[in-house]
């Protein structure tokens, strides 16, 4: 029995990580209708920044904060120099460019930092165990769940209560009308990429700390799962995205136990995606906008 609860908790941790990744993708899709595949490169970039800063300063927390900042800057750069000039073309053009950027950056990480990846010099957190309602969990797992919850709640209240947040939602639902009401659509896009990328950087950094390992291709599979999540969630819907993230975490966690003999973990995730899409071609999400 406890074993299944353990699995559920594990699924929850991964679900939270997917949610942090998928927020950025959902926001970018909602605003620009671009499948931002290079988001995975931002995630891996965050992990690299975290490990390098943490090893240089000795403080992992500092590394994680630096990762968020650096990822935000990278995200803004991607929008400014890659997507902004491509918005006039059909959607496959920015999508293919995005795949190109992902492949390019991942190989760049491999060439710059080596194929074997990097580890944290001093990282006590994954082995700090806590007893919690009979579950044994480590500090990083708790940090991931807490970080995802706090970030998503902050984001929700930001978009619901602040002026710029409301402008943001207005732009997502109808850019022209929002603009005629005086919302600066360009500023909204920058904000969008900054926040989404910072969260991806955070996810990458925390997963790096959890595994005590950062490697060039770490973003690859996660990115496609995050894409799968936003598609299953019904592109552009934050609520659907959240449900889909947690569901995928759980499906993977249990799936590896029950059908792991026939399919590997990644294949289970995509089988889930394809099954949901065939049953509901528009995804799970009900709401159209954030």
């Amino acid at each position, binding site marked *: 029995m406890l074993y299944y609860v353990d699995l559920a908790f594990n699924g929850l941790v991964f679900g939270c990580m997917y949610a942090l990744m998928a927020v950025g993708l959902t926001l970018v899709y909602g605003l620009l209708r671009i499948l931002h595949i290079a988001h995975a490169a931002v995630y891996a970039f965050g992990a690299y920044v975290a490990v390098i800063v943490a090893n240089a300063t000795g403080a992992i927390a500092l590394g994680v904060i630096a990762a968020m900042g650096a990822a935000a800057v990278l995200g803004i750069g991607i929008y400014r120099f890659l997507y902004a000039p491509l918005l006039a073309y059909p959607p496959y053009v920015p999508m293919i460019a995005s795949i*190109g*950027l992902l492949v390019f950056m991942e190989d760049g990480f491999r060439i710059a930092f080596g194929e074997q990846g990097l580890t944290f010099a001093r990282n006590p957190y994954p082995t700090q165990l806590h007893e919690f309602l009979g579950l044994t969990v480590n500090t990083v797992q708790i940090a991931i769940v807490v970080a995802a919850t706090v970030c998503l709640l902050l984001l929700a209240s930001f978009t619901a209560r602040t002026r710029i947040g409301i402008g943001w939602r207005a732009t997502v639902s109808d850019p022209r009308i929002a603009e005629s009401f005086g919302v600066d659509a360009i500023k909204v896009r920058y904000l969008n990429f900054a926040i989404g990328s910072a969260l991806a950087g955070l996810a990458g950094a925390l997963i790096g700390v959890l595994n005590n390992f950062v490697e060039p291709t770490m973003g690859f599979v996660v990115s496609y799962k995050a894409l799968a999540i936003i598609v299953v969630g019904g592109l552009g819907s934050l609520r659907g995205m959240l449900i889909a993230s947690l569901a995928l975490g759980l499906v993977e966690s249990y799936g590896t136990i029950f059908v792991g003999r026939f399919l590997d973990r990644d294949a289970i995730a995509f089988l889930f995606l394809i099954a949901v899409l065939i049953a509901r071609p528009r995804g799970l999400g009900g709401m159209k906008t954030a």
Partner: protein
Amino acid sequence: MSAYVTSVLAIMGINVMLAVSLNMISGFCGQFSLGHAAFYGAGAYGAAFFAAAGTPLPVALLAGVIVAGLLGLVVGFAALRLRADFLAVTTIGVSFLFVGFVRKQPWLGAEMGISKIPASGLGSEGNTLLIIACALVTVAASLYVDRSWMGFAFRAVGDDEETARTVAIPVSSYKLVAFTLGTAIAGLAGGLYAYFTQFIVPDSFGFILSVALMAMVVIGGTGSTLGVVAAAILLTLLPEMFRFINEYRLLIFGGLLVLVMRFAPGGLAGLARALILRLRTS
């Protein structure tokens, strides 16, 4: 021909077949598929399975074509229900699902792949000639389709599905035809590859290959058969001509994709067209 030249020519022929067949699906018909390597793999595994069981070459190749084409038909049905960007993500899923499935099947050799594929009996030069012949037929077929009524219908579907439907083009049937045709050719390429290497492993058919094939299509110029052929040949030869490129192959592939999309979304064919236009007007 030296052994090296025959093997480079064989790989080139296979890449041409794959890129041209992907171009039929994505370029002509506008259905962006990022899982083409899975159909190639399905063909290779289908052919290898039958070849290892002792069937003659044509039967094994046909088996590969049928396996890949059937899988393509199934994915084509998914394409009927899904919007363009959903389809791209779903085909990525097909790519991962294929490798994940094959990897866990003991009867397909699991991680170790299938290694007891008998020789084709044609010799290595004969193999290469067969592959090149198939590649030429594929290119000719693609040029023919492009000029035919079917090619016109494909383009209509790719340009604007709703309008195509309004002028009574059966959009669904044409999408299925495009998928089945393109994936069956990829399956044939897979069967030829299985006979060529006599040894296949799941990782040869992964997502990276799907991306490389899409790179050939978009760098060549989406929808242009000759442009895609040129890009397939170029992208196969470049790493061979410059050894140092091989180490940075992915870096260069990725970089090229970004640069082509950013500065010349029409690809090589688009550049050539612009050049011809300029020469004519001046």
